[in-house]
């Protein structure tokens, strides 16, 4: 059955979740695929219950994290049930908070999780794998060409200094070639010998430009769990910045044990997996010396992202699944 009225809200308050902007990108993606026959409202978590009570949406999509106790999740879900709204979660902090799955397990909700390895952790709930993506609107920030040599030496990493990331950067810093090229951005980064770290939070648009200008982007996963001590479920899915950097036409060096990335970008699609310092050194040298190779990879990564990895694609899958047209 076709959904006509959907509310998108956070699974926790925006104040507790720095990824709240993703919700706007999701709403925009949904609008692009269903511009005429779907009413879309994007309401902050704190106001969602009242909205549901008075507007009675057919579908309530709760996005984000279950790990924040200070919220109104109970009243949002109970009110949704009282107005017969279908409850759908799109959880993007799996597997790091998977031990909290009990909160949504018995609600009769559909669960979309960013982590394939968590699909069987939600009891009898209907679960689907749906990683995050790149915002459709970011297509317009830069052209499909990389910026001309504005930062030709730079290997850019932007993200929180999780312990595993610090460990990897410390290891990479042992290579003078890598250390001299690395630029690390993100709030709270400690100083690391021989590497330029900037303990700054980057505004989203500014980050996209930086991605576009960099020679290469370093992609490091996270392995800091908040509540994942039951089965220690490994993370495998690429984070949203993978798709954002790819959209900005810059090839990425992807350091992760999991090969799940290969289901998103093929071997020639501009996201290159690396296991060792030597491989990374080789890639940097090649990138510096072979601009054609670099530019072809960058364009391919943008092309693949525009074709398959925007929020409009993800929301298309979600809404089709819910409406029963794609199970």
């Amino acid at each position, binding site marked *: 059955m076709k959904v006509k009225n959907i509310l998108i809200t956070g699974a926790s308050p925006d104040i507790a979740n720095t990824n709240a902007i993703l919700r706007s990108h999701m709403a925009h993606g949904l609008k692009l695929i269903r511009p005429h026959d779907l009413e879309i409202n994007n309401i902050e978590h704190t106001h969602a*219950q*009242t909205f549901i*009570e008075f507007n009675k949406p057919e579908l309530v999509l709760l996005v984000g994290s279950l*790990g924040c*106790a*200070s*919220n*109104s*999740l*109970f*009243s949002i879900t*109970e*009110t949704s*049930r*009282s107005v017969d709204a279908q409850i759908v979660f799109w959880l993007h902090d799996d597997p790091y908070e998977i*031990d*909290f*799955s*009990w*909160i949504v397990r*018995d609600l*009769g909700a559909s669960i979309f999780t960013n982590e394939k*390895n968590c699909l069987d952790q939600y009891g009898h709930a209907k679960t689907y794998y749906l990683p995050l993506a790149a915002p459709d609107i970011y297509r317009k920030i830069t052209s499909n060409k990389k910026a001309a040599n504005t930062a030709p030496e730079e290997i850019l990493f932007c993200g929180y200094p999780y312990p*595993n990331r610090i*460990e*990897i950067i410390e*290891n*990479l810093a*042992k290579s003078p070639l890598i250390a001299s090229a690395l630029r690390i951005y993100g709030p709270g980064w400690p100083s690391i010998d021989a590497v330029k770290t900037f303990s700054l939070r980057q505004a989203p648009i500014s980050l996209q430009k930086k991605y576009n200008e960099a020679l290469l982007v370093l992609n490091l*996963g996270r*392995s800091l769990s*908040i*509540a994942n*001590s*039951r*089965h*220690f479920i*490994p*993370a*495998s899915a690429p984070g949203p910045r993978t798709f954002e950097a790819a959209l900005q036409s810059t090839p990425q060096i992807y*350091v*992760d*044990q*999991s*090969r*799940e990335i290969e289901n998103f970008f093929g071997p020639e699609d501009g996201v290159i997996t*690396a*296991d*060792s*310092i*030597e491989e990374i050194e080789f890639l940097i040298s090649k990138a510096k010396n072979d601009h054609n190779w670099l530019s072809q990879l960058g364009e391919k990564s943008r092309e693949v992202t525009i074709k398959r990895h925007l929020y409009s694609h993800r929301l298309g899958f979600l809404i089709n699944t819910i409406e029963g047209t794609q199970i």
Partner: protein
Amino acid sequence: MRIVIYHSDPQTANQYIPIAIAKAFNRISVKTVIASHENLLRTVGTSAVNGVLVIGGAGADEYILSRLSQCSIPKILWTTEDPYELERNILISRFFDYTYTNCEGSTSTSGFTYLPLAACHAGNFRVIRPSDDLYNYDFAFIGTAWPNRVAALDELFDHLPRNIKAKVIMPHNQYIQKPNLKSFALLNKSPITIKELSDIWNSTKVVLTLGRIFSNSNKINSISPPPRLYEASCAGCAQVILDQGSFLNTKYESLDLVKRATTIEECAKAINFLLENPEVRIEMAKKSQQYTLANDLYENRLEKIIYKFKDLSEALTTEKPLGEHKCMPKSLNVLHVAHNLKGFQASGGTELYIEEICKNSSKNLNHFVIAPTSQSDISLVRYTKQGIEILENHSLPIIEQHILSSAPHEHIFASVILKYCIEIVHYHHLLGFPLIFPLVSKALGCANVMTIHDYYIACHKWLLINHLGNFCEAHTKKSLTSCQLCLQADGLLGTERNTRLLISRRILSSIDKIICSTRESAVILKSFFSGLEDRVSIVQMLTPGLDDLSRITRVKNYQTSTFQIMPQLSTTFSTLRVIAIGNQARHKGLDSLLRIINNLRGEDFNFRILGADDNCEAAINALGFGAKCNVSKIYDRATLLHELTNSDVALSLSMWPETYNISLGEAMAAGVVPIATNIGAHKDRIRHEYNGFLVNSAAEVIDLLRILRVDKKLFSKIQVNLVEIKEISVLDHTNILSKIYFNLRSLVPDTQALISAKSINSRSYTDFEYQLNDLILDFRGYSSSAMSVETSWDE
């Protein structure tokens, strides 16, 4: 055949092993159910299964296993961590009919039977890559960073080509030091799934296996192959095994399916040889894979297990039960959980109710009650026809309402459930106990019943009286804003309300039958929590001593009919006798009662108060009502009957939505005209102006009393109509409860089998290490005070 598979370890990255075993069972047409800690015993109770296969052992919870051991179904343990956890596994094995060990070297010490772990076709099998250019890595080692492994790898890299493309993953944790290889920078320590591990093995030319020299049982080193050997072989790679500690004894070596080395030099030589000779290497991988597929998949192991289950099953059907801890075959053991017990502290309707159902139920029910009996004691008692017998006393303080989980309380609770073979737990109140008790009892295989005596499950202010002293009506409000204001007035943040309700919803999900005494209390409960419809039953609360009360009614009706014959007597109807029964505290409308008495002090009314608290008595004395108002704090049955016989009107002025109000029923059954506040169960029990009066204020009560004093016609009409009310007797009520209990028995595993002498004598229940809350609670860490041992939800 249908087998329950249960992984007993509370924290494990090896969750894939039971899944692999289940898939193997399914491939040979044996049905399986994979059970969790929370639903193992319920699964055993509700499914037609032929046996339980427990994987793991060492980390198992003894309470769950002990209860499992009481079930008359074959139980097999298959250990995964021998010899490292052999001591613990030997202890755990007493709960099982048979034990297999993953380690051949452990058999002589333990008496277990050797059954190695294996590979899973669905999870591990990959097509072997036919040529060198299709491989991603030359060499791989993937395994926990035990110190001997780190040292061996460091030395090995000195002997391998400098440009070797290696994949090394060495997870470490707080107990295992971070590996720091001299010649190889480990970029990433994050774990991966078995599926991805199989992909890596499949895309690696030579995979190294290194033993682990570390053990909790230091006397034995492993001499059996780890499952990695079979899994990697199944994934299609060539393997070299560096055996520095005589840990391996396998056909793979004797059949030349793997290369075995005993020194680093030999190991490097073998790796280099295989890298230089791809045809030899790929052929070796093929032979190894073929051998694994023929001999070392889980399917190959399961034949033995299936035969063993059949043997055990036959033995069970012929074995005659013996021993002292026998549960009565046709009886049912019920444990009531209460916040208080009659006879220990001042008590009210709930305590009276529990005593009535325990003393008056059918012979085939054995009733136990656990309750705090003082501020620092918890008692377990058994009710018999003869009276109350104290079975256990534990010095444990009652806990505050804000505490969700308290291991000492739960420990005692779990011990009681096991020791007395409890099958049904009937919750009357959780005040003074941890809120998670129902999850514990369900995990231990009990069926849970909850009677809603008040609204503690919805709010720690269980009478729903808010910070302003009024009925909050929170159930009618969709948002939690009013609740937040109420909590904030108590110095809390207010946002804790959401957490409390999420947790309560989880607790309620473990209750199999929720009993409400009237429709209104069910409505209030269901307004808080959706999805309860199928589990809520309305069972009218009993009224104790109904026969005595009915006799009073007959006397009154006689008087009423006399009056109808002689209507002129109405003019002589002088003093109206008004009674208030039950705990006359503030929430019962004490303020209103005092105002009513004060306003009518100069008129022809007499008031009788039974059950005054200290505040009530002090206020009455201070107001100087004299003979107009007679107060008793504690009253016995004879006094109650006497006073009801001599009363005309009964006041029930509760400010909170009573869930039944036994005192109201006593008055109505005795033909005393009721005036009650228009909330909660009162609305279900009184038809306004037909068999009583529903009021919204003290003023309405005063006006009504003045009318009733003079309007004898109205008075007698109500009294006559009261005769129609059918209160339920204790016997009828307990019969309904009994049916509920016995119906729920189908959810409980068959525990008629005896606890074997072995399990009883070796260790008592209180010696068990309590860890159930960790197993069944995933919300540890959810609230802001996440890290404390006692997780609280409201502070």
